[in-house]
């Protein structure tokens, strides 16, 4: 009872966005312990440190890699590859964003790509809006493709123990279809409007992509570590390693390579910065949230909710899968998908006996992942990457309005869920 009240209060306050969500989650988690719902020990057992470690490790690796300038290089290179034709640039930057997002955090990806995009569109004297819109959508779509692309996937993979390769086998195909469909829509809707002058194009063509690389040594080191980490993820299952070990070890290795030749003071400074630049608001929010959900779980609320859901779907597997897909998509368009997924995971897990064991649940996990990740594209507040891009573009004097965004993005989101529906139906149901 107390657990449910605390959880709902935190959830409501997070949705109202008046108070920072990390503070709320910590306060809520503290209340769970102070009210005696959980002991501190039980609370800590509820925290999925595999998720936290994986997120932190990847954040550190990406923050260091970003300093090499490789992402700007790729963005400029891809714009020049299509002769700086505005439509071509839009398609290339969208695809680049999707690929990066599949391997890196979405927010990091847009933080790296959006400033270069603004620079190029200003030179081309074209509206940046369609570019930013396409990048937002593609970052959320690309992130859905892999275990490490988006926090919901990390949480699902870690809690259920789904290896990296399974995500690639089951999600990447449908994500590719959705990505191409989305880019095609952009091509047909915006293709005509984006025109530039010969001279502006020539200016972009004279950009020196190689000048964007700040540090060749760091570039080689960080790309090698990144490649080794991804290879580690692919092989993790057969080596009996967890993703957090691989990510944190990779981060430690990259820190070592980047620092071993420096004096002690500088090392301390660099290491401190590498960790302090991680997104603590997100990580602490996760920490608090895991404790809150664990409180609900140990108070029996989750099991009760699962029973309600099952009785609503009549215990039919196909109906449950489709309900999860659409339900998570619509909800994730309006509320943060992270607390939603954190609540859904134990809920779906507790359905295992009804549907004949854990193995049988796999399609439900794919439905949850597709719904929660792609649903974030529905509105401007649906995912962190959306808000981050809106923030940057507002500071650059190009505000993105909620309704303007909703008009185009909600339909594209529904299209992506329809494609996922067809995919899940034919492949698994």
């Amino acid at each position, binding site marked *: 009872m107390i657990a449910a009240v605390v959880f709902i209060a935190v959830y409501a306050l997070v949705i109202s966005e008046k108070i920072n969500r990390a503070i709320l989650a910590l306060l809520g988690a503290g209340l769970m312990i102070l009210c005696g719902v959980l002991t501190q020990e039980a609370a800590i057992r509820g925290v999925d440190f595999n998720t936290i470690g994986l997120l932190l490790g990847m954040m550190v690796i990406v923050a260091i890699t970003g300093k090499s300038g490789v992402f700007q290089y790729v963005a400029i290179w891809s714009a020049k590859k299509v002769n700086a034709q505005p439509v071509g640039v839009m398609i290339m930057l969208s695809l680049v964003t999707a690929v990066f997002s599949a391997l890196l955090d979405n927010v990091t990806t847009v*933080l790296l790509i*959006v400033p*270069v995009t*603004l*620079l190029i569109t*200003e030179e081309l004297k074209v509206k940046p809006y369609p570019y930013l819109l396409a990048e937002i959508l593609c970052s959320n779509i690309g992130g859905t493709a892999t275990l490490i692309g988006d926090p919901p996937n990390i949480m699902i993979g870690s809690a259920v123990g789904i290896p990296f390769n399974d995500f690639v086998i089951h999600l990447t195909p449908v994500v590719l279809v959705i990505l191409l469909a989305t880019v095609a829509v952009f091509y047909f809707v915006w293709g005509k409007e984006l025109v530039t002058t010969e001279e502006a194009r020539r200016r972009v063509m004279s950009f020196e992509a190689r000048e964007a690389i700040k540090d060749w040594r760091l570039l080689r080191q960080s790309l090698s570590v990144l490649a080794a980490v991804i290879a580690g993820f692919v092989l993790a299952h057969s080596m009996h390693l967890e993703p957090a070990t691989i990510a944190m070890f990779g981060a430690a290795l990259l820190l070592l390579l980047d620092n071993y030749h420096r004096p002690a003071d500088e090392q301390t400074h660099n290491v401190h910065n590498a960790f302090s630049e991680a997104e603590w608001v997100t990580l602490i929010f996760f920490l608090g949230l895991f404790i809150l959900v664990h409180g609900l779980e140990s108070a029996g609320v989750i099991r009760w909710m699962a029973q309600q859901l099952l009785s609503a779907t009549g215990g039919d597997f196909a109906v449950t899968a489709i309900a999860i897909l659409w339900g998570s998509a619509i909800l994730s368009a309006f509320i943060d998908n992270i607390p939603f997924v954190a609540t859904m995971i134990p809920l779906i897990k507790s359905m295992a006996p009804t549907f004949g064991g854990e193995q049988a649940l796999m399609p439900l996990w794919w439905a949850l992942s597709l719904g929660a990740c792609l649903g974030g594209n529905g509105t401007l507040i649906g995912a962190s990457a959306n808000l981050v891009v809106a923030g940057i573009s507002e*500071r650059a004097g190009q505000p993105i309005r909620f309704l303007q965004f909703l008009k185009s993005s909600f339909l594209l989101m529904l299209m992506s869920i329809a494609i996922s529906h067809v995919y899940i139906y034919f492949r698994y149901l």
Partner: protein
Amino acid sequence: MNVSTIMNASPVTISVTETFGNALRLMEERRVHALPVVDAAGVYKGTFDFADIWKTLLPKAALLGMDSLTDLSFVSDAQEILREKLAGAGSRPVSEFLDRRVEPVHPDTPVKEAILLFYRLDEDIPVVERGTNRLAGIVTPWEILNALRD
């Protein structure tokens, strides 16, 4: 010794209703590198200085202060474009450019605090009256050095 004993109590100022072009001309004529901007009642609104001019010339993406775009070493140059941008800004009101990179100090602030601000930022320091926020004067490095050298 505090700021009021050394400040320039009648600095060159510009009205908040003036234009960018006039501000630039005034800076050139009077050989100053910053102009305190005041309203009709003499209340300090901000400072117009070279940084405001550079801001109009740069691509917006470079002004975001983001780690992912720390330099422009890879872009192309075109003098024509920069000329156009400077000319284009001429008629915009100075009120669009008011940044407050230096928080104003008060007449009773210790001179040591003013020296610390110079050391950190190297910007002229506006001095405003407590409560009313009316501009009382400005302190430039020369005011301080002249007071110390007699």
